[in-house]
């Protein structure tokens, strides 16, 4: 099968060098496709210009759903569907419903947020990663430049990456 995507890869072995490299490469007008790292490098997403994720909002909305579901379920079951006097308590009083409401809020919030994270990040069992370089899950940081999305020539990009402090400059086709 003929490959249709061509990348220039810069391999770095230090996160501080990587951060300054990202700045340098961007300043020289090269668009970075993505950076792959073995561990979270703080400040990298800001350098790359990524917006803050809205996952906290997702977590809040799922939490709200959990609260509503729990309260509706308890009030309907014990208050309306089959009211029963237990220890002289009211059919549908709020205080005893708080623990279950709290638990379901946390449960739905956590599951909802993690599920959303998996979906938007394309993480799934049997998911085939498009690995630029195997070493990016070991100890190397890999900066990938998509040639199709840049106007500069391959050689120019290679020299910009080389000057930015990369240990190696490689090519990768998909």
């Amino acid at each position, binding site marked *: 099968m003929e490959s249709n995507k061509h990348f220039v890869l810069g391999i770095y*072995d230090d*996160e*501080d060098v990587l951060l300054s490299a990202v700045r340098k490469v961007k300043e020289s007008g090269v668009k970075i496709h*993505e*950076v*792959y*790292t*073995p*561990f*979270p*490098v703080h400040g*990298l*997403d800001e350098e*790359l210009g*990524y917006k803050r*994720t809205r*996952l*906290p909002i997702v*977590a809040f909305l799922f939490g709200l759903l959990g609260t509503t579901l729990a309260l509706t*379920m308890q009030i309907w*079951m*014990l208050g309306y*569907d*089959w009211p*029963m006097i*237990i*220890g002289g*308590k009211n059919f549908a009083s709020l205080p*005893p419903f708080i*623990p*279950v409401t*709290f*638990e*379901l809020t*946390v*449960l739905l*919030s*956590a*599951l909802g*947020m*993690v599920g959303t*994270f998996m979906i*938007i*990040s*394309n*993480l*799934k*069992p*049997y*998911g*085939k*990663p*498009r*690995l*630029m370089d*195997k070493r*990016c*899950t*070991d*100890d190397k940081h890999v900066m990938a430049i998509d040639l199709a999305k840049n106007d500069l020539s391959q050689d120019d990009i290679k020299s910009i990456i080389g000057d930015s402090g990369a240990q190696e400059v490689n090519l990768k086709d998909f």
Partner: protein
Amino acid sequence: MQVTSSVREPLVTGGKTVHDVTEDICRQVEGKPSKSWMLGIAVSLVALLIGAYAVFMLVWEGIGVWGLNKTIGWAWDITNFVWWVGIGHAGTLISAILLLFRQKWRMSINRAAEAMTIFAVICAACFPGLHMGRLWLGFYWALPLPNTFGSLWVNFNSPLLWDVFAISTYFTVSLVFWYIGLIPDFASIRDRATNKISKMVYGTLSFGWDGAAKTWGRYEFVALILAGLATPLVLSVHTIVSFDFATSVIPGWHSTIFPPYFVAGAIFSGFAMVLTLLLIARKLLKLEDYITREHVELMNIIIIVTGGVVAIAYATEFFIGWYTGVEYENYTYMSYGAATGPYAWAFWALIICNIIIPGTLWFKQIRTNFITSFIISIVINIGMWFERFDIIVMCLSRDYLPSSWAMFYPTIYDVGVYVFTLGLFFTLFLLFSKFFPVINMAEVKSIIKSSSSKKN
């Protein structure tokens, strides 16, 4: 640039590089199991099988095979349940609360501690299930499912039902938290795998992780919010477990101090179990550079703090039992009657194991020594089992009517079911330590530059 500090001990010793971390942790997963591991799993499996017979007999015959009587309707089952749930707490505490407090020393120990949480909660969950006797009906009794008795629903006013929701939520959230953390490390193993089976298994487990900066950014948010959600969960679970007792009318049980005191006790026993397991893992898996003396001391300090809270709670219970002047209070688990009565041995076991012996941790030489820490951690676990036994059995053995006072004698099935969960726990933990990365590689790699002993 290497940062060294004169006030902080390095968290990773041995001058490790980022690549060394991958090598050291993956070696365990990739290599053949050691002889000590084989021996360990053999012993655990024997315990599991012997225990499984006790569980089978229990389900077949009913809970009459236990030593329960008309006075003592809860004994080893709920003792073990509360003990196991308590042990689970340190895992989530290390991963959630210490993450929020930005404590970097949690990074070498959180993975194993979280695994411990999950396995401990599985063991805990066996007991409420089994003590219902007719296990197969338990679903209708415990979960709000439409059932064959009309549309009769579960009682949401009952702390026992709150427990079901608390434990299952705790288990699910802990499992998700643990798994999310494992994904990047599974990817590391996948990319190093040389044989087909490992490639397939770790390929599946790693969910197609590629280490993209965008995913890492989201991942860190997810971890932070999960920590934020799990933190009140840690506190709520044992609080709710304590409601099983605190909302009742048995002397010694209906105590408002129970929620905070149970939580402190849970963290106390949980950290003791983390220490026991990590000190074994440290030696067997050769993780001396990652689980250092500093880690052991910091965990011991948490044990001192929570043990102190527990000791104050005991003193308060003892004092209030006397001060109220209520005659029934003289037979509760923290009273003069308990210290001198038929269960005095259990009372003193509690005091010695939970206050006197852990009290020696105040000495720096003892809390920084691996052998003494190991012994004390086991003693605390025994002590915390006695605490739950004392609360449950001692308080029930002397109820309002002297004519119904009774003692509890365990049968082999009481012991057998406990052995079953011990076997289950250690089997699961040993399987985890062989096939999963025991240390969170990605997190440890991120602190190598700032907190390792390597000097450039």
